[in-house]
């Protein structure tokens, strides 16, 4: 809930998200979001590495579950199939992705690896979409209820005033944008609820790339309710 004198919004994600990623219990769009966040913030990366290291130690300590007799030979068959496949289809998909990247390939190269790979995968089938002057959107097409998109905003331009049907988490990857709530630079997260109107404008300087995850009203309700209570007061 907005109030005129509230302090600046928090721009960080709670540890709950890092734990959710660490244990694999986030859906794909949110998992990508938190992975990208960890790629941009040393403290989050450190926490995530601790959790994944604990995961590895606990994996070693598992009591081995017996496999069927032919388990290894079936895995080797799968490997043969991979090794013998010339992947003609893969090459043509890659060509299509390069074409659809539409001159932004160099810029994509500067994004965190997880985001870059998601963008390349999406570009195999989907082109960038025009979303107003200076703004392009690439839907990443991940499964699940939440929707992940890569935004490319040229300096001085703004994200379209999308009706916030649901809630939106935005992570700045390169450049920066300004809105009524402040300045968001690389590694900052903007959290917008359904009741929050804002019109972010990219700052002069490098092109602003951002990763946005939006969800239907109900799906994010729990998370957003908390953010509003915790951070927006």
């Amino acid at each position, binding site marked *: 809930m907005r109030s005129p004198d509230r302090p600046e919004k928090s721009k960080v994600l709670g540890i709950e998200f890092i734990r959710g990623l660490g244990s694999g219990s986030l859906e794909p769009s949110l998992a990508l979001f938190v992975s990208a966040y960890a790629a941009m913030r040393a403290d989050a990366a450190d926490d995530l590495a601790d959790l994944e290291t604990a*995961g590895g*130690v606990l994996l070693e300590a598992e009591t081995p579950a017996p496999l069927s007799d032919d388990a290894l030979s079936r895995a080797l068959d799968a490997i043969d199939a991979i090794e013998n496949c010339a992947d003609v289809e893969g090459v043509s998909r890659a060509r299509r992705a390069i074409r659809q990247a539409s001159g932004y390939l160099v810029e994509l190269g500067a994004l965190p690896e997880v985001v870059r790979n998601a963008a390349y995968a999406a570009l195999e089938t989907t082109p960038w979409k025009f979303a107003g002057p200076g703004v392009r959107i690439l839907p990443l097409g991940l499964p699940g209820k939440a929707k992940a998109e890569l935004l490319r905003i040229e300096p001085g331009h703004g994200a379209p005033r999308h009706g916030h049907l649901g809630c939106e988490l935005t992570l700045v990857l390169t450049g920066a944008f300004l809105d009524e709530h402040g300045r968001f630079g690389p590694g900052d997260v903007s959290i917008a609820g359904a009741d929050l109107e804002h019109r972010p404008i990219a700052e002069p300087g490098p092109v602003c790339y951002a990763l946005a995850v939006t969800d239907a009203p109900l799906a994010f309700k729990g998370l957003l309710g908390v953010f509003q209570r915790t951070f927006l007061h």
Partner: protein
Amino acid sequence: MRPTPSSFAETVNPDRDRHCALVEAIALRRDRTAFGELFAYFAPRVKAYCRRLGADDGLAEELAQEVLVAVWRKADTFDRRQASVSTWIFRIARNRRIDALRRTMRPELDPDDPLLQPEPAPAPDEEVSAMEREARVRSALQDLPADQLELLKLAFYEGLSHSEIAERAGLPLGTVKSRIRLAFMKLRGRLHGELN
């Protein structure tokens, strides 16, 4: 000697270097014998992890195979300076789980939960080596009382929510939260000298 299910006493896994060399042999030489040895160690453990997450025997075995085939495909991205093989394989299995089970997380967040209050980050110090991190995490796991270890496993390894854990462990929600918070702080090595 391998860690038994109840002990993380070795501060470094004795198989660590061996496992690294096996993955590197796959990356460099497409070495199938090396793959066979890794498979024998990790596939049954990944299967056990998948069983723990609720997959039936058939699905768990299928997922374990997929994870090990992914190990073959991704072997050239493995870097022993960044992670041990078990951490790396855990991450592959975890990502496979995100894609396969697509279990949507709806953490019942509590704004008063101290875990949610952004903490001052530890000085993102000089890069912690994977070995140092592993030694610290192993010894933290080793030192945790059994009940805290169990809660930590449910929360961080199996990915259950606080209220699911409270139900399973038969504990009040508040107790679950504070124990998990404490366990996580210990894992992060933030409590040295503050407790005990």
